[in-house]
């Protein structure tokens, strides 16, 4: 097989996989929240209600597509696409496994190992905000525009702490490439802890996690769509599959963010203390590393759901206050200390 064919397969596979997880996530969200709230959740369509997302998809596809009068038509159509695309594209740099040897050919389980993977992630998450603000603006509705504006302010504010948290990781590992970082996290640290970013950078991890919640517009940071205040915020006027794209993009975003969390702070595909490569064949090793990665990712995906159904929502000014007055100073101090330590130890 030619290289481009392998790349194509990888691209198709990871897109399909991300889509699948996102689809299942909508089901997990509803079932898990139901279980936390002493309810049952959707359990009619298919076994355990697993076909519910499919039914929802069919519903969304077959609904009438309404573009409100006096909406900016082109932008209105562009909004959801701009929102969903960057979320998908983030997967390009996520190392979802180590490598797999098929037919003597070593395939790295990553679409492309860009040496500036970090910047790529940050840049894409910055683009996602356009989807929201354009959708909010084009809808010609006050609720939507408020949601769009909130989204802009929130995402821009939380990109800074996110960047600061990521910078500490860059300082630690000295590279921008996600694959390199994962490789450097193998082995142990201080003799007994796994050599994970989480143990080396707990503060950075917390900042990153909080910022990730804010970037994903999840409770407690779901101000842009805050259904009790802004109806549904920036996508109030959307219907049919355009709405579906927004909702879906959110989950794709979640999957991407938890994948990045895993590769930066939790050692990616590697198991702690155990080197799977030693006792597994090349093919099974590839699959195993992929599964390990997925399990770690699944934990964070569940955490997203779990937190959502536990905490209330911030207010706009409190959200800004947390970002600018707590996370950014904390991130700066953390960065400074990390830089100092790195300088002293090397």
């Amino acid at each position, binding site marked *: 097989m030619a290289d481009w064919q392998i790349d194509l397969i990888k691209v198709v596979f990871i897109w399909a996989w991300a889509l699948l997880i996102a689809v299942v996530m909508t089901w997990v969200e509803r079932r898990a929240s139901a279980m936390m709230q002493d309810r049952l959740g959707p359990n009619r369509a298919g076994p355990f209600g697993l076909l519910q997302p499919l039914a929802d998809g069919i519903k969304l596809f077959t609904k009438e597509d309404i573009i409100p009068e006096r909406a900016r038509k082109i932008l209105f159509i562009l909004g959801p696409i701009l929102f969903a695309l960057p979320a998908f594209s983030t997967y390009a740099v996520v190392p979802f496994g180590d490598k797999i040897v098929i037919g003597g050919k070593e395939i790295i389980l990553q679409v492309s190992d860009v040496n500036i993977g970090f910047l790529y992630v940050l840049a894409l998450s910055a683009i996602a905000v356009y989807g929201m603000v354009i959708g909010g603006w084009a809808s010609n509705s006050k609720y939507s525009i*408020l949601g769009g504006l909130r989204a802009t302010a929130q995402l821009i504010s939380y990109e800074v702490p996110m960047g600061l948290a990521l910078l500490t990781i860059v300082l630690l590992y000295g590279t921008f490439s996600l694959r390199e970082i994962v490789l450097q996290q193998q082995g142990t640290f201080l003799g007994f802890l796994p050599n994970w970013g989480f143990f080396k950078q707990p503060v950075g991890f917390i900042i990153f996690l909080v910022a990730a919640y804010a970037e994903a517009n999840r409770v407690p940071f779901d101000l842009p769509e805050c259904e009790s205040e802004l109806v549904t915020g920036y996508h109030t006027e959307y219907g049919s599959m355009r709405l579906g794209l927004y909702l879906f993009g959110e989950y794709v975003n979640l999957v991407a963010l938890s994948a990045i969390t895993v590769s930066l702070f939790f050692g990616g595909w590697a198991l702690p203390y155990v080197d799977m490569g030693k006792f597994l064949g090349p093919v099974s090793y590839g699959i195993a590393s992929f599964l390990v990665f997925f399990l770690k990712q699944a934990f964070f995906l569940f955490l997203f759901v779990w937190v959502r159904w536990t905490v209330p929502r911030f207010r706009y*000014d409190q959200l800004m206050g947390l970002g600018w007055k707590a996370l950014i100073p904390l991130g700066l101090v953390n960065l400074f200390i990390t830089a100092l330590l790195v300088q002293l130890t090397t």
Partner: protein
Amino acid sequence: MSKEKGLETICITTGPTEVGDYVTLNIGPIHPAMHGTLRVITQTDGETVISAKPEIGYLHRGVEKLGENLTYSQFLPMTDRLNYCSAICNNVAYEMAVEKLLGIEVPPKAQLIRMIMMELARIADHQVCVGILGVDLGALTPFFYLIIQREEIYEIFEWHHGARLTNSMGAIGGVEADLPDRFHEKWPKMRDTIRRANDETDSLLTHNRIWMDRTIGVNAFCGDDALDWGFTGPMLRACGVRRDLRKDEPYLMYDKVDFEVPVGKHGDVFDRYMVRMLEMEESVKIIDQAYALYKELPDDAPLMKKMPKIIRPPEGQIYHAIESPNGELGFFIKSDGSDKPYRIKIRPPCYMVYQAFEDLVKGEMISDLIACLSSLNVIAGELDR
């Protein structure tokens, strides 16, 4: 963010001053956070509310006019539709008003049953209010923990008088049924589950900093302002005024039971929430005591006064008020000696509270407007009548 207040005041004072620079945001009557059909026309400067004009009447059904055309016992089901979260309190308030007009007093057992049912209804009402407050602030889970307990309460209602929401409990002159077996069976267990649900709500919300930031200091209100606006009930008590008709003008057998009146300090959303949470606890205590009193009475103790089939009160006018979950619920009835009331005026508690809405939310943010509205527990059925 304890220093958040500073930022907020800057926002308010430096905002544009010309009217044209504000955004008019029409919240309601169809909006997820407008319980029932409320409508608030707000002018906002960014996220800050400059003015908020409540418009009411979307659920106006002319209950008072209807009352003038129905007989005294026919009007009873109409009172269910006032505050549908605690219909029993409306029923009892109306029944007691007519009984006052007739000059009769119901037998003690009936009084105790009414008390027990009213306190159950109060718990149910507060559960909804607190739960909805959580929902509007983004915490959906406590709502379910509370609403499950409400279902248990509704089951007792159903077994007592056959309806869950629109209860139409009792009749003029007493109650028609003894406490159901369900109550005897369930109450000892239910007392604990109600408390457990409250504890769970408490541990999910009360000390959570996000919740505290969202509620503490949000539309705080002065006690004397509240009295000037005619606040009653939990809203007034949250402002620090200890006033509870159950204590001040005891009716039924409230003077025989021992309970506390929880009082807040600042009248902010947090205090309202806490007052309601504590009141549920007090209601549980009241039910326990009333149940003990009830058990002392013989099984065949009378439940009803002997009433004529058609009630014709003498000419005159009375006003009778009880402490409903939202505050003073009063019925003014003027009789002209016929079988229909000449004029019925309902004094709904949230009517008075809601008219101060603009004062409550001015200068706060849109999110606080929503929080404020849910903490007022405005029930459109009661407000518009």
